[in-house]
Every structure is written in structure tokens, then in C-alpha cells.
């Protein structure tokens, strides 16, 4: 008998490539947006902005590792 509920690897592996500080005015949102648009130049890009710290003061910009994705 084995417990598998939380052992399936269902999420693509993603890597943080930069963060954005929500409450600091020296972090430029235009640069952040440009970076995301640049990432979308790549085929099959998967960009994840859903991760942040507990108070959502720091937003992570994560991308999926290319090797994890293949056309079905």
C-alpha cells in the first residue's frame, strides 16, 4: 500500500528569472512587462506570475523549463 495523493508530479517545473517589488517605486513595471512580452517571442512559452510572497509584496516571474514541454 502506498500513499500517492501528493506525490504525483503534476505541475511543470518553472524557474524564477526575476522578481518585482510591488511596494518600491524604483522597480519599473514597463520593463517588467517588456520582459514578459520578450519571453513570448519563444514558441511554447509558459510564463507564470502567480507566485508571490505571503503578502504579495514580491512577485515572481517564472518560466517553464523548455525540456518539460513537448507537443502532444
Amino acid at each position: 500500500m502506498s500513499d500517492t495523493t501528493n506525490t504525483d508530479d503534476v505541475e511543470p517545473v518553472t524557474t524564477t528569472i526575476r522578481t518585482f517589488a510591488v511596494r518600491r517605486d524604483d522597480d519599473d513595471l514597463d520593463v517588467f512587462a517588456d520582459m514578459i512580452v520578450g519571453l513570448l517571442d519563444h514558441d511554447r512559452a509558459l510564463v507564470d506570475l502567480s507566485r508571490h510572497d505571503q503578502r504579495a509584496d514580491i512577485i515572481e516571474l517564472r518560466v517553464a523549463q523548455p525540456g518539460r514541454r513537448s507537443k502532444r
Partner: protein
Amino acid sequence: MRNAVFLVKNGIGFGHIRRALLIAEAVQDAGRLRPILISQAGSLALYHNTPVRVVNFPLLHRVPSAIAEDLYTDLLNRLLDRLDPAAVIEDTYPDARYRRLPALADRPRLLVMRRLDGLSFDQIRQRGDFAYYDQILIAQDRDAFLQEGHSGESLAAVESSGRFTFVGNIAFAPTAADVAAARTAYVPDGAPLVVVNGGAGGDQMPDGYGDRLFAACQTIAARLAEEGHPARFVLVTGPYYAGRQLHETANVTVRRYEPHLPALLAAADVAVIKPGNNALSEALTGTGQLVLVPDVSFMEGLDEHAHRIAAQFGGAVGTPDRNSLEPLIRDALTRKPRTARLAPSATALDTVAHAIHRHAQSTPEAKVRPKLLLLVLIAPHSIQPDKLRAQLPDSLQSAVVLDSRQEDGGVVGLASLTRIMRGSPMAALVDCDPREVSPQQLVDRGVRLLIETTPSPVVERWLRRQPPTSALLTTSAEPIKAVPSCPDAFQRRTTRLLRSGAAVVVLLDLGDLPQPAVADYLSTIGEWAARQPLHLAGVDAILAEQADRLLTGRLG
């Protein structure tokens, strides 16, 4: 290549994202637009294998601070501004957040809708949320939509506004090879296969639906194993499942996420499912017996839907507990394969992709629509309506002659309705007490629009007390008596009416004209109308105007 942006979010399930991905992949395959999916989702599992570009945000209404929510919204706007989408496609729930984004203003916008219960559809319609879309594509066929219990106003809006299109169900259809592979993977020995799935595993209410469903099925599987029953259970919990830990046993396999779930559901001998659109569609492509376990649903009316499906395709409806499910699963395991199947629409994806491409095409210039005039002529006694219609000058070919034989878009007087049985009039003029017939009888004859010259409490009560299945929309008409040698009276009145309204119905009574004067009179007003910035509209255009008002929150 221009971008087509899909805006989609999922709180507890995967349905919206799966549908959006199917459409986006069809658009990508067509090679004319670059689809980009912008989602709000807690899991990226569905994006493992898609070739479509994805930007995933958190569920914006759930981020822990208003400042972060504002920042994410600002970022979304800047992103959309840079992507400059040629078309924007949303799924099912019109979202006020998107509506307020400056970057989306004045873009071609489409809404793809899955089934909604009647009350929810009414609420969205009455809030005016549908009015922001150029086209609304309903992922159902018309007959299925009519079974949902929608209000007469909603049916009228869908039928006549010109904004809605039925495209048929959109769901992934596994191939026979996929289904065979799923059986080989899970029951290589050919044992009966029971697949249990509650969608992506999230709960609409804090009632532990998933926990109760899977715990019950695990217990039932254990009891069958004790009896030596060969059935094998596969529990696909979904990544949002947060119930008790489940344990694999000799006859139980547990998966948080199964990328081949459509094939697995189609391969099942018994599918125990929450009857959301995807799981149900996929199970219906197969021949397994259905045990439908509706959960509290958001705008879907799953309980009623489950009973309708069970009656139509066979199957049973239960609750997520052992006492309910054990006899249903045992019974289902004794039954032969289900014969009533439902394949997803073969044309739905193409229809949606075509609509996206059509709206994404840039038009050389936007055109302001001219004012609309529905001119209904009442023939003089000396001329039969059909004869008058045949004599209309070219400039008045779009005018309608009351009680004339007209295949499409005719207008009949209620007083003549029982006498004139030919044709299918689209509108009826209230020219007598309406209570001789019921509103439903009019609708059954094809009438969709009532034309009144004065608002009548009798008509209002008549409509309210016997509401037909599809609402009869009403419009007012200006009665004008044609005066011999004085066509300018008609011209002045019509001009005044059109000054304050975009669409006007005029009831022009030619009864006082001597027969020889009719042709000249009509030629004069026809030539005048041709010189004006107006369009002689048919009944369908006025009906569409009225139906569109049902989408803007001004009526209904």
C-alpha cells in the same frame, strides 16, 4: 502575425482552460494568428503539453493585498497593450475587470459560453454584461440550450439579437487508439474499469464534496475487493483536491492529474463523475455506464442537468456518500455497455476559429449605421395587400404590406391572424383585442414582434399572464394617414421621429387615397426616402434592435 488573446480563469476546475486551449490550438494550427492564453489559475498542470504561449496570473480577486491586485491589473493592461490583440476571446463569465482595462477598449471581443442555468443567464443578461461582445458563441446545440429552462426574454435575445451563435459542444474527443491505450494502462487484464473524477478537485462550497466522493469510492472498492470482485477503480482527484489522503490498494489507483483523462473516461465501464461539461462530454464519447454525482455548482444547475442527462443517455444520479453510490456502482457493473453516446461537435472548433479570424480581420473603415425605418403599409380597400405589394416601386421594395403574403418578415394584423393562415409572419400588429389568441399561439406561428400604435394595459396583462416560451417583444409604431396630394405630411412626421430615434416603425394607412393616386404617392415617398440617410429596414432588423435591448439591461 497579430495576436489573438484568450482571457480565461479557473477557480476550482479546469473546464474553462481546457476549452480555451482547444480553441487556441485550433487557431494556432490555422497559422493566421498567434494565440496567447492569459489565465488566472492555481495550477499549471494543463499547460504541460500545449504548444500555445501562456501567461498565468494568480486569481486576481484572491491575491492578499489590494496593492498587489492593482499592480497585477496594471501589469495585465500593459501586457495587453503591448500584445495589441486583433481579437480577444473570453470564456463564459463576462469579467468586469477585463471590461475596465483601457488596453481592451474597442477591440473585437468574443465570448465563448458553456451551458449556464436559466437564472444565471438572466442575471448576466440583465446586468448588461453580454452587450460588450461582438459575438457570443454558445458551446451547445440549440436543442440542448432550449432544455435549460431559460426565460422568454433570454430566448428572445439569443434568437433575435444577432449576437449569439450556437456552435455545438466543445470538448476533447479521444481516438479509439487513445481509449485502447488507457485500458491497457489501467486494466491490462481486462478487468471492469471504474473511473472516478470530480473535475479538477476544487470545491464550490466548503462541503467536502471531493473528500466525500473519493472516500466513499475507496470504501466501495475495498468492499468489492473483499468479495473478490474483479473491478478496478481509478480515482483521478484533480490537482485542487484537498480532502483526506487516498491510498492505493490492489484494486485502487490514485492519480492527482491524468493527462489522458478524456481517454480514460471514455474507456471506463463505469464513470462516477461530477457532471461538469468536460468530464461528462468525455464519458459520453464512451460506452460506460454513468453514475452522476452533482456538486453544488456555480451557474450550472448541475443537479437538474444530471437528471436530464441520465434520462437521455441512461445512467443514475447519486450523492457523494457510500450509501448512495454503492448500490449504483454495483448495479452499473452488472449492466451492458451504454448504447446512447454523444460525440463532441465535429464543426464546433472550426466555427469558433472562423469567427475569431473574421473578427480579427481589420476593416478598412468603421461605418456608422444609417437610421432604420420599418414602413408598414396598410392597403386601401380597393387594392388587395398582395396586389399592392406587387406594385411597390423599386425604392419601397423593403416596405412591408400589412396582411400580404410574404415568406419572411411579414406583418399580420391580429384581427386577420385567424383568417390568414398562409405564410409565417414575423410580426403582428395589435389592431384588436388580443385575447382571442394566446401569446404562445402567436409564437408558434413564428411571430416574434408585436407592433402597437399605443401602449395598452390589456396587451401588457395579456403578455404577463401567459408568458410564451420565447418572449414576444413589443415595439411602438407611429400611425400616419396618407393624404392625397400631400406626401410631405408623411415626410415631415417621419423626419421628426427619426430625429429622436435610431429605429422607427411607421404604419402608413393608404385607405384615404383614391386608387389612381396610390402609385404616385408611393413613388414620391419612396424617392424621398432614398435621398435620406436612412435604411428601409425589415422586421428582422427592428426585432434585432429590440432583442439587443434585452442585453443592455434596459429591458427585461
